[in-house]
């Protein structure tokens, strides 16, 4: 469905809100959402380029970009350390950090005026505006915390499923609701942000949406923090010693 606003006297269209319209590409047997692919690659290029430039000519006393990157690393490591624990957080910093940075940059990319670039159908927006991206991210989280649990305690990781039939139902339910709520939370928040901005632009195109867009920079960062913290805490629960647990 599409809402359109035309100014008085049938001027041409100035703004429109559209949801669920995608530029579809056919790659072999797969059909992919083109605008999500484009923005995902832009985010990846930004992240890889930034770290590549920042890690040339490493110095013992960092300055400039290297300093900033080390600060960012400390932040990411502290997310993992708080949830997983001092002993074994180090192996999980790459996963948690990648999730955090990807989601953060993806959310912030959506606040740029991307709709100025016209593509044949749909419009450019955050990659996290597409539920396929967020489901993929949450499946990565699911697979990695199951892997962590299996590596820690072998098949004993699934022991708690067999303790009592009622609790087993709860555990099975939790198994499915974790990735579901992870993905829906991120997707819904970002979609809601972009809808609010689109509706405001539809009503007042100039200046009025700016404070909200600044607010959405904050909420985008918080969503990235929530996603990575939750992933870290699931991993942490899987790798912790089971003696004092449940």
């Amino acid at each position, binding site marked *: 469905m599409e809402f359109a606003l035309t100014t008085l006297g049938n001027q041409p269209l100035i703004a429109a809100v559209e*949801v*669920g319209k995608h530029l579809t590409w056919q790659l072999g047997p797969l059909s992919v959402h083109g605008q999500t692919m484009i923005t995902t690659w832009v985010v990846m290029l930004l992240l890889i380029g930034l770290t590549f430039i920042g890690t040339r000519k490493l110095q013992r006393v960092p300055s400039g970009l290297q300093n900033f990157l080390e600060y960012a690393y400390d932040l990411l490591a502290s997310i993992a350390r708080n949830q997983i624990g001092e002993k074994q957080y180090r192996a999980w910093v790459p996963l948690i950090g990648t999730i955090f940075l990807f989601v953060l940059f993806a959310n912030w990319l959506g606040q740029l005026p991307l709709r100025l670039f016209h593509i044949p159908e749909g419009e450019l927006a955050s990659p996290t505006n597409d539920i396929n991206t967020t489901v993929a991210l949450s499946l990565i989280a699911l697979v990695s915390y199951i892997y962590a649990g299996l590596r820690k305690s072998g098949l004993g990781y699934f022991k708690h499923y067999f303790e009592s039939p009622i609790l087993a139902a709860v555990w099975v339910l939790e198994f499915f609701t974790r990735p579901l709520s992870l993905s*829906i939370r991120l997707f819904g928040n970002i979609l*809601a942000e972009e809808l609010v901005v689109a509706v405001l632009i539809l009503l007042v195109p100039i200046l009025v949406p700016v404070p909200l867009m600044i607010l959405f920079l904050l909420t985008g960062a918080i969503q990235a*923090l929530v996603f990575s913290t939750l992933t870290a805490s699931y991993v942490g629960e899987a790798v912790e010693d089971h003696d004092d647990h449940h």
Partner: protein
Amino acid sequence: MNDITAAASVIAAALAVGLAAIGPGIGQGNAASKAAEGIARQPEAEGKIRGTLLLSLAFMESLTIYGLLVSIVLLFANPFRG
């Protein structure tokens, strides 16, 4: 889509987001007031309290977002379009 379905979808969308905002609203109010109390009692813990508060507010927020998602589906991707 016939008229009845369209009208019912719009009302359902409004109810979904409106009702879903009640509980999280109360919860976020409680959380924020307790956090303010905590900061007043122990100002040196402000950073930690703020971090925890923001994180838990995001969790409550997501409940409203679920309602919003249902209403967005009803408005933009209605399965009963026919």
